[in-house]
């Protein structure tokens, strides 16, 4: 699949001397949902800012559907809708006026029917004549999404779109995102709710300290880095782990002593389960039940960033 956004050799050092991005290379595929994950200050918002034109890069280039975003910025930017992280809205304008303004700003002719559709999709229709300052935080977030969609972008950036938004609203929003994707819009999102990335994304990129440390199909990532946990419910409580058990470094005992957890790598040649069970049998530890669980993206992510930080400290 042809990339719709190509980021090459992108670096950014702020005037304060802080380096937010270091030689970032990234391709976003047409029509995908790409989730960019990373801890606070990793460079997510800077990266989005440079692609969208709100931040000047120190080095490197960005092309959007073949258009350089500096020399051919009009063509590049007209394809992009941006929902910023902060709730930055006008105060005195009506919802209808601010969304229509956005459409005009992007050079699109008036289309009240289309604006009406967006506002209805985002459950904003009954608020269309309200001043933005009278809306709740979640409603303001929807207004920002409506503004970003007002000019029918082919690419949508969502920077922490569900921060401070209640569960109900989040569901609505993701429905809108799914509909957009079905309509062929490419979506790049950052989120702290990793379950959302897990739920929504086709591919995941992880950024840490200004560097892309991983880009992977979500399924592949989950499979490759996925650890599994085997939980054994013990018949008798243990006060501590008996010495000499197999795989002691991968074992942990719950606080009340009735659960034993064994963490193992599904990709390893030997998971060690058979030997663990044999070893437990020898030690006379019996269990009532057992279950296994695939680690979540969040655990993978924490593991990756942690690894990267340790690597950097060497």
């Amino acid at each position, binding site marked *: 699949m042809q990339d719709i956004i190509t980021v090459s050799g992108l670096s950014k050092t702020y005037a304060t001397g802080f380096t937010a991005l270091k030689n970032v290379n990234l391709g976003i595929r047409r029509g995908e949902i790409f989730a960019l994950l990373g801890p606070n200050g990793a460079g997510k918002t800077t990266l989005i800012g440079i692609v969208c034109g709100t931040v000047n890069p120190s080095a490197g280039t960005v092309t959007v559907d073949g258009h350089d975003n500096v020399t051919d*910025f009009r063509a590049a930017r007209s394809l992009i809708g941006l929902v910023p992280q902060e709730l930055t809205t006008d105060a005195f304008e009506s919802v209808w006026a601010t969304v229509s303004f*956005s459409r005009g700003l992007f050079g699109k002719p008036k289309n009240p029917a289309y604006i009406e559709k967006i506002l209805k999709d985002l459950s904003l229709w009954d608020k269309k004549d309200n001043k933005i300052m009278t809306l709740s935080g979640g409603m303001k977030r929807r207004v920002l999404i409506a503004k970003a969609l007002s000019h029918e972008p082919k690419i949508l950036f969502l920077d922490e779109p569900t921060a401070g938004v209640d569960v109900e609203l989040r569901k609505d929003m993701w429905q809108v995102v799914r509909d957009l994707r079905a309509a062929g819009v490419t979506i790049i999102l950052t989120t702290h709710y990793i379950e959302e990335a897990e739920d929504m994304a086709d591919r995941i990129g992880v950024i840490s300290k200004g560097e892309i440390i991983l880009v992977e199909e979500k399924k592949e990532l989950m499979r490759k880095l996925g650890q599994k946990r085997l939980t054994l419910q013990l018949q008798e409580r243990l006060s501590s782990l008996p010495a000499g058990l197999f795989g002691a470094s991968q074992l942990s005992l719950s606080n009340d002593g009735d659960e034993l957890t064994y963490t193992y790598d599904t990709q390893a040649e030997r998971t060690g389960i058979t030997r663990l069970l044999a070893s437990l049998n020898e030690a006379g530890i019996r269990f009532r039940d057992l279950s296994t669980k695939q680690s979540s993206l969040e655990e993978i992510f924490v593991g990756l960033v942690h690894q990267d930080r340790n690597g950097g400290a060497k």
Partner: protein
Amino acid sequence: MNWRAIHAIYRFEMARTARTLMQSILAPVISTSLYFVVFGAAIGSRITTMEGVDYGSFIVPGLIMLTLLMQSVMNASFGIYFPKFTGTIYELLSAPISFIEIVIGYVGAAATKSIILGLIILATSWLFVPVRIAHPVWMISFLVLTAVTFSLLGFIIGIWADGFEKLQIVPLLIITPLTFLGGAFYSVNVLPPFWQVVTFVNPIVYLISGFRWSFYEVADVSVGISIGMTLAFLVACIVVVWWIFKTGYRLKN
């Protein structure tokens, strides 16, 4: 050129003007009326004429200029400062528009408002004193040129300002004194020779002089120099604005 974007920005700004129309109009009209009472009636009764023009009528162009300069700077600086303050500037920066369109939209709207106010002051003056306009076309030209130039200056101030105080400082500490010292209420000829020389460093002298000439054909400096100085100031502002957008000064990190 993205005309729709210019139209969108212009309409957005004019809507803001419309929301605050009463206070926008009322304040300058009241202060102008007060100037007529104080300068025209009280002091004017002692001075009677200046450069052969009835004193009350003589100060009309200066009063219009005073409002025009203040309003242009304040409208334009606030217009661009507010999106910076609230953060909605992100949308302007990410839109497929160049600085030319942003400037035409904001400066155009600010200049429009101050021209309207200038004309309202002119109409108000008519209620107090006889006003004669010898060269209407030149009068309008000076009005538009000055409004655009000082709206550009206001736009620069709005981008430079990083707090509401700075937004107020330039109009209060620079524009108002320069206007008062720029011959709004007197002919520069009545000053002692030394102060006449000092006065000619003040760019506003040239604006008021040229503007007054278009009314009464009396001027402190020749009209050519007035136009030249105004255009020079306009070009200087355009260069600064161009530099701001080229470098992203106080707009982009």
